[in-house]
């Protein structure tokens, strides 16, 4: 019989995590409950769904989003919509209404699927994750978080607490775009996000991230370097050329490597086109 624990607070949650590292940490269940009847039955469940200390959005110098915040909460939060557009836009295209009501930021970051829709947004916005265990708390820059296919820097006794997302300055424009068979529900063929700092129409610096083109969501350093100092438009051509040799997408059931490469080039070119 599966054991079940619903911690009352984060202290209780990290204690449970330390005592039962083999138990499933469950929140909205939108990944872990898929085909649940055909899965290995977990020895126990630590249920973090709606744990109050994980469900918050704090707006300060940065915007801090609790790991238990759902995608509908992200999508509808005024400060996130206004200041962190890529996150709000990705939230709107994660699954559909039912998935957005249950899927959480912590879940997307913890599952760390290469097609996690919010993950390129977190990369482009240069977010930092906060994790907790009985040993204490620490922060991990999100760009260092993903270590391989669905693997992360999270230790077996740790829980994800929040993402701290710096607010882009006025000279930085941000964007996010997903390409799939259909807006809702479909798993992305390619998606990407960018934060582009401009002086007039010249690119000062940029962070460009793509999903579904590697075994994890990635920043594309070759593109970021190629666009520096270029004017929008020229930068689009430079980005396209730099991307061509920078990624090795795969063929799978959802798309082909050739298609993904071409769409990814179009995405980054669009990011650097004059608006």
């Amino acid at each position, binding site marked *: *019989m*599966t*054991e*079940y624990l*619903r911690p009352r607070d984060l202290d209780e949650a990290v204690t449970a995590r330390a005592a039962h590292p083999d138990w499933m940490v*469950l929140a*909205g*269940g*939108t990944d872990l*409950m*898929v*085909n*649940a*009847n055909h899965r290995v*039955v*977990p020895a126990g*469940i630590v*249920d973090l*769904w709606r744990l109050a200390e994980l469900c918050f959005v704090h707006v300060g110098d940065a915007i801090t989003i609790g790991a238990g915040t759902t995608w*509908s909460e992200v999508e509808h939060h005024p400060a996130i919509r206004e200041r962190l557009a890529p996150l709000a836009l990705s939230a709107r295209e994660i*699954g*559909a*209404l*039912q*998935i957005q*009501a*249950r899927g959480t930021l912590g879940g997307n970051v913890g599952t760390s699927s290469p097609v996690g829709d919010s993950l390129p947004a977190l990369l482009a916005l240069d977010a930092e994750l906060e994790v907790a265990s009985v040993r204490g708390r620490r922060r991990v820059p999100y760009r260092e978080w993903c270590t391989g296919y669905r693997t992360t820097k999270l230790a077996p006794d740790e829980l994800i607490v929040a993402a701290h997302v710096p607010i882009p300055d006025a000279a930085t424009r941000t964007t996010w775009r997903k390409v799939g068979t*259909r*807006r*809702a*529900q479909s798993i992305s063929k390619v998606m990407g996000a960018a934060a582009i700092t401009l002086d007039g129409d010249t690119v000062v610096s940029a962070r460009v991230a793509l999903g579904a083109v590697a075994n994890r969501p990635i920043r594309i350093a070759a593109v970021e370097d190629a666009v520096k100092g270029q004017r929008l438009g020229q930068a689009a051509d430079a980005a396209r050329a730099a991307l061509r040799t920078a990624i090795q997408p795969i063929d799978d059931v959802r798309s082909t490597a050739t298609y993904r490469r071409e769409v990814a080039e179009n995405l980054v070119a669009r990011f650097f086109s004059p608006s």
Partner: protein
Amino acid sequence: MNITFELNGQMHSVEASPWKRLLDVLREDLRLTGTKEGCGEGECGACTVIMDGEAVNSCLVAIGQCHGRTLTTVEGLATGDVLHAVQRALVACGGAQCGICTPGIAVCAAHVIDRGLLEGADEATARTKVRELLAGNICRCTGYQLIVDAIVVAAREVTR
């Protein structure tokens, strides 16, 4: 474990593994077979129920998570013998064919209307919004036209 929750206005207790899906508890333990299983992956929306005021896929909810929560299934949409406006509109507009997706659509649409998500929208905007808000409910029979018609009619009736 023992799990107690409010379902369609009444308290229920079940003895089940916390890992069992809410969908299976509804259909097997409580014999509420209005909620359907389509895909079991959270893609199709046939198993949609309302949990603490949000439309969710019951195939993706572990029953342990339901302890102390409030649930509404398609059986709870009607008030006595009076169907919910959206159920009446689905009947009147012919917004159903084989019927597997229909309970999920009725629940999701009732949630959308009762939450006021279509309030103040003109006809064209309402149609667009319905298609977006119900994008997680897949119908393989109808092409959606009559379903959208029904939800827009119901929304108008409720807000009037």
